[in-house]
């Protein structure tokens, strides 16, 4: 599924990477606020849903080759994070949905879990 379709489903605003979102294809996702769990359990190139907004989310994404991060509960990334995402070529989105609701909508739309 294109990242732009994902944005539509969860009514998300694309903060960074509008120009690459259309061509970014994502089939699996992971929702977590614990970055070590993301590192331990993610195997594929997932979309990461998180309510955590600190630079470590970007570092985790960099390590795990994650290209799409969706901030839930309306969380706003800092300028530093936005800059890091630009440099790393990562798409950042923000939805007002809660983690549960955002994951539920995407699962229903056919996005799979990473296991």
């Amino acid at each position, binding site marked *: 599924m294109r990242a732009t379709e994902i944005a539509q489903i969860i009514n998300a605003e694309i903060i960074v990477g509008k120009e690459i979102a259309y061509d970014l294809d994502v089939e699996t996702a992971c929702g977590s*606020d*614990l*970055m*070590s*769990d993301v*590192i*331990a359990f993610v195997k594929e190139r997932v979309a990461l849903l*998180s309510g*955590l907004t*600190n*630079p*470590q*989310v970007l*570092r*985790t994404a*960099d*390590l*795990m*080759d994650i290209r799409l991060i969706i901030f839930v509960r309306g969380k706003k990334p800092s300028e*530093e994070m936005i800059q890091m995402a630009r440099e790393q070529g990562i798409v950042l989105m923000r939805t007002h949905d809660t983690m549960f609701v955002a994951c539920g909508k995407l699962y229903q739309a056919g996005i799979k879990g990473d296991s």
Partner: protein
Amino acid sequence: MIIEYIIPRLDFSAAGKASTDMKHRLTQLGLPPALIKRVAIAMYEAEMNIAIHGDGGRAEIEISKDGITTCFIDHGPGIPDIELAMQEGYSTASEEIRDMGFGAGMGLPNMKKNADELIIQSELNKGTTVQMHFRLPAGEP
């Protein structure tokens, strides 16, 4: 080739820089992506441990034909029970640290899973040294 990184205490803006920098260096060397990912993940966990628990410290990374050896050294409080710290989900991180997304208790297990060898030496009130080795696949330079 030996590369050294300084890891500041509780600086979450800087923490993780060593592992992401190493990931990019190893990519430039043309090493296999799966190996690079294992090194970067294990280094990241070690780096975060030093920033969170070890009062800051340093990392020395040696790249040779035998593989990649990483050594993380801190002079923090030490680990009282290494076996317990190795258990998945066990963490002594504070509530404040957990709120920042750490303290899942997966750090040492993640290192063990990704490194070919892991040696932890720790002395209470003196510090901890974590050494990891990653073998190069046969045929790599």
